[in-house]
């Protein structure tokens, strides 16, 4: 049992001294509005509303669930939890009876691409749900799904049980819970065993390289949070990846065309920079800050946020009504979709929270104030580009705002949970004495205890 406690008074005084980037209160209101929207997508039994997806696909259900899960990560309130449980139960039921999903890719109810998309969406949602609630049923469902996916496309850092286990632990930690030590140990074990596969996957492409770095960074961060010592070869592999990603990014020109790759590199380096307990993270963080500064030039002009080309896969996976055929066609045709990409401000928020001065605070507050419309939403793709354009735009804003809120809330929630643990589980006598003293004080003040 590791007990940690830092001075609360310290925190309180520091929070007095620190200024706020944006109004947390209005951000919460916006997330509550999105929760209301998400509630409309889901029926009373956790199924998908007809207006959201006429086919009632499991993928749509999981995507709506992800939206609610992220909202809950940011708000931490009982209403979002209630809705989340409703969807979680329904999704688990459907996974268990293979309704809308073909585990093992051996049936013919879904095309392989559809089935693949459903696999990833559901696994992602279940890992979020497991992270936020600790629901073991979801854990076993998500591992089953990953098993099926691995069987189809082979092991890669992205398609692995370790990536899901780490992401659950990470979400739990971000939402103020503890890390899942056993899961993280299992993930460390898995990556150690697949060491050569990671190297091979990274050597394949720029995308592979950045994906591996993201994965390794999150794994190392989760093991640090869980108090586990990762094997030295994994740390060494991570360090090498940072150098490779920086070198590969160096050769990219800062143009709109290269934006999808630039943002991938920035995302990987930001994850790497979050390992502040490892010295190499500084290199990653400093490069990420420099890169963000250059990308920001593409991203906006004055107070206007510009449309930038995003890869089909980065966008279509969030829209349940995109058909598998269209996805395949567009990928093959190399289509790029112009979007207002909220990933950049989200990454900046994460970098800032690790103490890296990006100098782009105004970009963050500009974006937050632009997307924080209490009525309606800010449209992030051109009209007609996506069938579920509103869902896409709202989900992207939820990702940004909930990350922002969770980072703001994290110290408070961690402190609160540690103190509650002290008051209720490890030192109940304090609670008893406090009650006693308060009772004496109140009785004396109201005159029932005179002397």
């Amino acid at each position, binding site marked *: *049992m*590791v*007990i*940690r*406690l*830092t*001075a*609360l*008074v*310290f*925190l*309180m*005084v*520091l*929070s*007095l*001294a*620190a200024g*706020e980037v944006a*109004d*947390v*209160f209005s951000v919460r209101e916006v997330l509550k509005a999105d929760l209301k929207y998400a509630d409309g997508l889901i029926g009373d039994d956790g199924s998908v509303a007809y207006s959201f997806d006429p086919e009632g696909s499991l993928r749509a259900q999981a995507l709506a669930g992800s939206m609610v899960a992220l909202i809950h990560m940011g708000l931490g*309130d009982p209403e979002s939890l209630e809705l989340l449980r409703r969807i979680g139960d329904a999704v688990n039921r459907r996974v268990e009876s293979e309704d809308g999903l073909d585990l093992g890719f051996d049936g013919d109810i879904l095309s392989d691409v559809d089935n693949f998309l459903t696999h990833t969406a559901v696994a992602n949602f279940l890992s979020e749900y497991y992270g936020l609630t600790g629901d073991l049923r979801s854990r076993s469902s998500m591992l089953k799904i990953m098993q099926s996916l691995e069987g189809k496309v082979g092991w890669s850092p992205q398609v692995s049980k370790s990536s899901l286990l780490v992401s659950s632990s990470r979400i739990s930690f971000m939402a103020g819970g503890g890390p899942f030590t056993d899961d993280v140990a299992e993930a460390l074990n898995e990556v150690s065993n697949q060491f050569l596969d990671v190297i091979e996957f990274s050597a394949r492409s720029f995308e592979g390289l950045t994906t591996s770095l993201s994965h390794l960074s999150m794994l190392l961060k989760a093991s640090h949070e869980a*108090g586990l010592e990762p094997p030295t070869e994994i740390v060494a592999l991570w360090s090498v990846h940072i150098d490779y990603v920086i070198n590969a990014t160096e050769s990219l020109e800062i143009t709109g065309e290269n934006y999808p790759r630039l943002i991938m590199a920035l995302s990987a380096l930001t994850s790497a920079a979050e390992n502040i307990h490892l010295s190499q993270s500084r290199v990653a963080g400093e490069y990420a800050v420099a890169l963000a500064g250059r990308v920001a030039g593409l991203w906006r002009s004055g107070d206007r946020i510009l449309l930038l080309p995003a890869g089909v896969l980065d966008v279509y996976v969030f829209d349940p009504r995109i058909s598998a055929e269209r996805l395949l066609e567009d990928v093959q045709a190399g289509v790029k979709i112009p979007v207002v990409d909220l990933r950049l401000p989200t990454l900046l928020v994460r970098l800032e929270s690790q103490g890296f001065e990006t100098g782009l605070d105004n970009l963050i507050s500009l974006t937050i104030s632009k997307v924080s419309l209490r009525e309606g939403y800010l449209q992030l793709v051109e009209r007609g580009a996506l069938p579920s354009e509103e869902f896409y735009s709202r989900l992207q804003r939820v990702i940004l705002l909930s990350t922002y809120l969770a980072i*703001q*809330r994290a*110290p*408070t929630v961690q*402190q*609160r949970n540690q*103190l*509650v643990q*002290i*008051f209720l*589980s*490890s*030192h*109940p*006598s*304090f609670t008893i*004495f*406090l009650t*006693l*003293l308060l009772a*004496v004080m*109140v009785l004396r*003040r*109201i005159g029932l*205890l*005179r*002397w």
Partner: protein
Amino acid sequence: MAEPSTKTAAALMVVGVALSTTGFSLEAAIRSGLLTILSGWIVSLLQILQFDLGPAVIAFGVGWMLSGLHPMRKWYLYPATAGLIISTSSLTVSNYLLRPEFYLPAVVMLSLTWAVGPALIAAGVLAALVVNRRVAMTGAILSPNPHEDKLDVLVLVGLYIPLLPLAVSDALYLRYLLPAVITWAGWHFLADRFTVYLLLRNVKHGEIELVAAEPPTLEETTLMNVVSRSYYPMAFGLGVTTTLTSVLDLLNIRLFGGDPFSATAGAALASIAAIAVGSLYVGPVLWLYEDLGVRIFDKVRRVMRPPSIHSLADEMVEIYTFIFAPIGLTFAVADGDLPLALILLGLAIHLLLTISMTATYLYIRFSAQRHLHSVIRSLKERGALTDLTKI
């Protein structure tokens, strides 16, 4: 049993030792394989016996015994003060110790902070209750404690100890020391003049007369005196702020934004401002009213009453404001999270009590006596004070 008896104390200590030993020996038995653990809660129960309940009962016994050694000389003040100092200093030390590699020291520090300290305070308070009831029943008089006027300084030190890690930060000086000094300075320069003004205001109409009914009593800087007096400024500050915030909250105006900690801190800061400004009236003026020995004689109705502050200000320090309004405030700030609300309330009270007590101590120590004389003198100079025999 009407006074803290040493027998009870000894019995409590034995029970505490027994509880702790049971915890340790059961753990040893489990480790050596003599016993098999059936479920996880037994482990936490053993932890509680070893580091929480056991030490707490022992400490309570020690505090009870100490209070019982010289009950009539208020020895219960010692365990109470010691408890506060132990709690706050071990809390401060544990900031540096709470790492996995220091398991035992960390657990001991937590035990001192959350079990031993509170147990000593509780023992002192309960002993005080028992002794004072006994004294009130028999009509005896408690003798003063030889260290009573030094214990208040110790309590103040205890309140400041958790802030030591902040000694390098400006925030400490801005939020804790500066408000205390400003409040005291305000009281020091204004309290006597304000009191004279308030007393004379009514005399001018000619309906009342000020009567020197008793000789003025001098305030001492004893522990109970400082603690009970600093209650007024603190409660007033809290009352004003929380009432105001609740009203604004009803009107959907957010005065204190941000995360719960900064919102509570913001509200506490507003309370400090209220202490600095408003407490002149509920603090020193009220104390001077009590200590001057002056009565107001109503010439029309032929009744004599002690001078009092306005009833609204009095309401602000009443218990309901003190207990319920802050809870309402922290609920609004903590979004319905009860444990968080209580933690925030504790922090806000620490902040306010520290400031209020510092200012009160400084006032009673350096200003009260002078003010008492200057108020009487200036009332006499204006011929507003009548002798009791002349009515």
